[in-house]
């Protein structure tokens, strides 16, 4: 396969603090306060407070409001509807399948097309719209799980493990560490799909976000607060909390808990051991290796830029497959808790 000619794209400036769209003075997912921010999704490393104006989906704006309170000018961007940013730049948001409201942003300028994925996944997720392949010249992708050792198993098997652990422990409980935005709600929805309709108990840090999901039309079934109830009442139950709470004093209130964690990192034993996890659940809101490479093949861009993650390996794959690629060395994007 011949390598396509290198595109020009001087109007787009990758910067350690975000991707700068020069003609309209706008930034995508900036890690510092700016005048105009285009935000792909509500995770704290992509959506920060303090911007002048924020362009995002309805759901992402609602999530940002919940986390930071209203700030600056909010522009709701509906999916698949182009928005003029001025000076000949158009932005169109497409579903990214990462968390509720998550979007990829297609930027068009002078006949050139760039897609910025933010974070994305290809697996079905009952809490958000699935990823869409958007043809483009430059595909700016993440590579959180960009190593061939990462292969996320089907989620049904992971749910089975979780439900089995609960059944084996009528006198204890299962404490599941899950990222507060997205992962927690996805785990709840998948538990419901697996036929589990008992109340699910929540750490205080998850309650507001779950409430917002329900307001935005994602039913989660019966949820109860794990705060302020007797230890005995949690026997035989599933309790969700942020990963940081698993090894924290908070977990002392739980009756003989099995420590579970829902994360793509759980695929690697030593990573699970580092977190003192006893029941690793390999559940990720990012693409695994096969999905990353499949997506690059499907999008088939002239050039692939890699924002963050294990970019070295993905660049190597691009090289082996005669695809032009570069790493952007972005700062501030975290991957610890997926």
């Amino acid at each position, binding site marked *: 396969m011949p390598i396509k000619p290198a595109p020009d794209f001087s109007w787009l400036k990758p910067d350690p603090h975000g991707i700068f769209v020069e003609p309209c003075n706008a930034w995508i997912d900036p890690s510092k306060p700016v005048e105009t921010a285009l935000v792909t999704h509500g995770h704290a490393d992509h959506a920060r407070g303090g911007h002048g104006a924020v362009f995002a989906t309805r759901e992402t704006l609602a999530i940002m409001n919940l986390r930071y309170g209203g700030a600056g000018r909010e522009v709701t961007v509906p999916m698949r509807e182009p928005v003029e940013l001025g000076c000949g730049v158009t932005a169109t948001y497409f579903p990214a399948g990462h968390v509720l409201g998550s979007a990829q942003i297609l930027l068009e300028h002078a006949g050139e097309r760039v897609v910025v994925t933010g974070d994305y996944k290809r697996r079905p997720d009952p809490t958000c719209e699935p990823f869409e392949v958007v043809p483009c010249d430059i595909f700016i992708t993440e590579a959180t799980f960009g*190593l*061939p*050792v990462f*292969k996320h198993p089907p989620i049904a098997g992971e749910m089975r493990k979780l439900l089995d652990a609960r059944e084996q422990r009528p006198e204890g409980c299962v404490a599941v560490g899950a990222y507060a935005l997205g992962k927690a709600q996805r785990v709840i929805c998948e538990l419901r799909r697996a036929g589990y309709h008992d109340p699910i108990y929540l750490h205080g840090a998850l309650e507001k976000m779950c409430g917002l999901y329900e307001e935005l039309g994602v039913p989660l079934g019966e949820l109860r607060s794990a705060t302020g109830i007797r230890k005995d009442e949690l026997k035989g139950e599933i309790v969700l909390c942020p990963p940081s709470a698993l090894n924290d004093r908070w977990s002392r209130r739980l009756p003989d808990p099995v420590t579970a964690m829902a994360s793509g990192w759980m*695929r*690697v*034993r*030593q990573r*699970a*051991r*580092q977190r*003192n*996890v*006893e*029941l*690793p659940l390999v559940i990720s809101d990012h693409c695994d290796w096969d999905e990353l490479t499949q997506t690059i093949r499907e999008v088939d861009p002239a050039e692939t830029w890699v924002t963050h993650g*294990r970019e*070295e*390996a993905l660049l*190597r*794959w691009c090289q*082996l497959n005669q695809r032009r690629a570069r790493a952007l060395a972005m700062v501030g994007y975290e991957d610890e808790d997926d």
Partner: protein
Amino acid sequence: MRAFATLVDRLTYTRSRNAKLDLIADYLRTTPDPDRGWALAALTGALDFPAVKSSTIRNLLTERVDPVLYTLSRDYVGDTAETASLLWPAPEGEAPTDEPSLSEVVDLLRAMTRGSVMTELPKLLDRLDADGRYALLKFATGAMRIGVSARLARVAFAQSFDVPVDEVEEYWHGVEPPYPTLFAWAADGAEPPRTDLVPLFRPFMLAHPLDETVVTMDDYAAEWKWDGIRVQLVHVNGETRVYSRSGDDISATFPEMAEALDFPAVLDGELLVRGAHQGGPKNEKTQGGAASFNALQQRLGRKTVSKKMLKEAPAFIRLYDVLLRDGEDLRELGWAQRREHLELLMDRLDPERFDLSRLIEAGSFEDLAAIREGARDDAIEGVMLKRRDSPYIAGRKVGLWYKWKRDPLLIDCVLMYAQRGSGKRSSFYSDFTFGCWDGDPDKGAELLPVGKAYFGFTDDELKWLDRHVRQNTINRFGPVRETDKSLVLEVAFDSVHESKRHKSGLAMRFPRINRIRQDKPAHEADRIESLKALVRD
């Protein structure tokens, strides 16, 4: 293989020692022979398949996966077997159906040669899923590293069948994987494995720290506590073996000792090398004649020993006790009677290779204290007190033997974590965090960190420690590695104080690594209570 893979998987994620014991015990109870025997061999590190090396696995992988992607993956995962288990390209189609049993795996691995391994091992890997591949590769390379020591596995065996762990230890060295006679004895009540045909290790009798106890010299005899390594010399059926504290066969390291006993006996003593460091040159008054521990250490850990070394640092044993002699078991006798037997034996032993540990003549405990204080010799560790009527009992029984170490304060800790140093030590793991047991390690106690030290060792010891850390890492936390907690470090320190900042509630002043105790098994390291007893706030 499925049950074994599940066991390995669950052990990997289980932190509590009791839970690990339960998992292993359950497995041993419910798994048929000979699979469970092979599993026990794997957990105790008794297996070796020479055709399968870490480099074999790497070569297999790089034939199938881009070498750069393999290296990036290996660096990230930090373990060759795990990387391979995850990267192995699964054969087309459904999940594997003809999964092999553990004993079939053993047969196939044994049949592999350096020539055939590159074609045979892949066939085996294709019949397993990722967890199975991981367990297989760990098993095949003989490096399980799942936080289970050989001792823990033997304790689990004893727990599984409700037999005394000391008996398991005693039979252990006379049986071979997959241990049919051991299982028949423990599980089905058959006769125990024969112990009279091979030179078996008998578990040592050990001493408690004296602490505040005062004893009368009418009931107790005193000896110097020599600073070498405790060994057991066993001769049966024309064969002699030298065993270390942990029951490892170190005959090859000390061939002169393995040649020095030619009648059936089991002797207990301190292995030393000739010199004048401890108690001066050989003499009537202080006995003397032994080099420093450091001199002995040059000879430890070698699989072969040069003629030069045998000449320059010849070993001998300073005898403490006799357990068996000419087929007669003396262990039930009181110490004083055994001592008489031991004294009578000396005529039959080569004085170049053996001497008798001298008794300290002290009329009273106060006299003994004065003699101990007066021993200005840095090298002598202290004194031992042995109850005159005490039988030889495996393990550490209260009131029979005491060790009364001299200053500085010393405690045996287990290495838990290591961190790279900075400056000229930047490539070395040179900051060591060590811990003591919070109770009886055989009854589920855990290690709690008690301190951190980054000096006290020589450059050579630092190199050795660095290698130990790299080869025995079970976890990484950024710059810190967690080790498999198998290494005992003798830590010297000036004082110890209560501290709320540490989980153990204790903080040491000026702790330093006094000595690397390769000879001492981790479960015999000191307990928190021993350290607490030294608090003088």
